[in-house]
């Protein structure tokens, strides 16, 4: 992987709020990270810390009451949040590498194309979102025919190919969702996400509802497909062991903010942020000595009214007593390893 190449997708200082009648929920605060080509980038954190919100922002599917109140998202250098204002020429040059394609004449078409052909997503509990009264084959061919200039016979042929790719007997194309196991349905959702050969796949808790054996099987398969087709993955989960096993780099989120960002082995072997350490102390090991684990006392703050300064402070085992009036900023503590903890690493204001 070439570190200096432009990242595939670059999220810069993203802010998202949900405007509720009890006030704004500050779900995502000043989040920045980039996913490189061919990389599996993990976004880990407890429920409600903002993981899905970021994914939805990237895919451009956030709906009111969500509002993006700041930041930029650049996909191959194109401003994703401003796709409405992107000219087909710019999109063609930057995203399609100069190749002319049908269906990018209007901004609506352009967004739709970005959404499936460039970035696709396996939504949280997607396996339960397949249309129960539509045969699998039509759920797949519909997507293909909406985006590609192909007839039904060709779409069917591609659907069979996709089933093969995710290891399901193609005769199952004739089945309805309820006739398939949870694992199979999840594989079909993955097949649909793969259908247009996107460069980035966002997988939001893709295996959370599945048993471990099925989970492992599916992740191994995704890993193999990734190596075959070379797409990048934004992998979202609350299961840190799974995340460390599957990702190249990991961002740890807490209450809407990224508190640490580093290569997976660094997160595991040299965690810097007290929250990351606490999370690691929440997963007992399946091997080795049985040691007492503490987890983290307390519970995450309410994002309707998050505390000023460090949001983790009241649960932190390493708080020094120093008041940090503003949110701690991520800084590169050691090369390629970032942490946002000013008690321990000070503040890099010159950046």
């Amino acid at each position, binding site marked *: 992987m070439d570190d200096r190449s432009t990242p595939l997708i670059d999220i810069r200082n993203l802010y998202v709020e949900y405007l509720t009648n009890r006030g704004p929920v500050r779900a995502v605060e000043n989040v920045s990270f980039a996913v490189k080509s061919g990389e599996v980038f993990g976004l880990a954190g407890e429920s409600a810390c903002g993981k899905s919100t970021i994914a939805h922002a990237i895919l451009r599917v956030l709906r009111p009451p969500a509002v993006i109140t700041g930041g930029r998202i650049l996909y191959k250098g194109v401003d994703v949040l401003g796709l409405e204002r992107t000219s087909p020429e710019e999109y063609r040059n930057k995203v399609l590498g100069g190749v002319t394609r049908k269906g990018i004449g209007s901004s609506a078409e352009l967004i739709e194309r970005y959404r499936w052909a460039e970035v696709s997503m396996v939504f949280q509990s997607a396996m339960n979102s397949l249309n129960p009264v539509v045969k699998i084959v039509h759920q797949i061919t519909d997507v293909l025919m909406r985006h590609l200039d192909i007839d039904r016979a060709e779409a069917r042929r591609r659907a069979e190919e996709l089933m093969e790719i995710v290891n399901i007997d193609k005769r199952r194309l004739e089945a309805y969702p309820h006739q398939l196991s949870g694992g199979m349905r999840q594989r079909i959702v993955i097949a649909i996400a793969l259908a247009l050969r996107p460069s980035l796949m966002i997988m939001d808790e893709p295996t959370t509802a599945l048993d471990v054996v099925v989970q*492992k099987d599916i992740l191994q398969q995704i890993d193999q497909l990734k190596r075959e087709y070379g797409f990048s993955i934004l992998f979202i989960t609350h299961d840190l062991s*799974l995340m*460390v096993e599957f990702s190249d780099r990991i961002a740890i989120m807490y209450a809407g903010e990224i508190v640490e960002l580093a290569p997976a082995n660094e997160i595991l072997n040299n965690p810097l942020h007290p929250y990351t350490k606490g999370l690691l102390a929440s997963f007992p090991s*399946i091997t080795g000595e049985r040691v007492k684990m503490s987890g983290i006392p307390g519970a995450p703050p309410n994002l309707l009214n998050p505390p000023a300064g460090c949001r983790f402070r009241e649960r932190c085992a390493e708080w020094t007593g120093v008041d940090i009036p503003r949110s701690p900023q991520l800084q590169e503590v050691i090369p390629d390893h970032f942490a946002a903890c000013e008690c321990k690493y000070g503040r890099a204001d010159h950046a």
Partner: protein
Amino acid sequence: MPEAQMVGSSLEVRRPLLEVRHLVKRFPVGGLFGKKQLHAVTDVSFTLDRGEVVALVGESGSGKSTTARLIVRLYEPTSGEIIFDGKDILKTEPRKASLSFRGRVQMIFQDPFGSLSPNHSIGFQLERPIRIHKRARGEAAVRAKVYELLETAGLNPPEEMARKYPFELSGGQRQRVAIARALAVEPEIILADEPVSMLDVSIRMGVLNLMHRLKEERGIGFLYITHDLASARYLADRTLVMYAGHVVEAGESVDLMDNPQHPYTQLLLSAVPNPRAGLRTREVQARGEIPSLINPPPGCPFAPRCPRVMPQCRHTMPEVAQVGPDHWLRCHLFPPG
């Protein structure tokens, strides 16, 4: 080995507090005449004593919850014996569990949201079992007991917590209330069905450590039901592995997980995320999912997926064999004797 003791040292003279023997539960399913049967639990035997944590692990649908529900009589067993404190309660309490039994064996459910009444304060919900089971008399004594329970469960300050309603609490706090409520009757055994599965990861250890403390300090015995093998290894003295309604392997937790013998246990363990091993180091050796439990074919339920299947596996269920000081399994690769 005494036939009932899939888990348990056969040398002990004193009988364990709870002994489950050959427990079977079949649910009639489908059709007007309901001829089909779903074999949810088949021939499950184990023991659970005071001051001991026994884990029941397995994938979803393997029969874990049904086993616990049979013990507290939410379901009536199809056959088998439940010996509690020396008495076969299915015979001595044939219709439903007695107040005395319910005062000694409590159950905690997975969903900390659904298991508390939204309309009553936490204090009220803890007072009820204290009064019903007469664990304290008089207003002041009941109050004091409520505060003590809240404190034990780590819900501080107790006076304030008692006034709160479930919606004002986090998931972890609600599960602590559920534990406090189970403790209110001063039980000897608590059956905890996935008590931390719905909680956020950072607060799970707090609840598991609370259970550990109650076992150590009060000698409460726990049946810890979970699909998370790592937490079973962490908390439980012994672990039973269930597959399709059968206990296929059982033993001292660390030994069982470090030296799994049954091909299913091996498969299950190889699939548990282990960051230090990496994703590709151990390939999954078997595909497929739990077979249908409706009128299942004879033989070992794992046979259709088993990488080491032999002809006899497809027609007879193996007998229990002992393979270590406290390590038992049912697999034709290990014939008894």
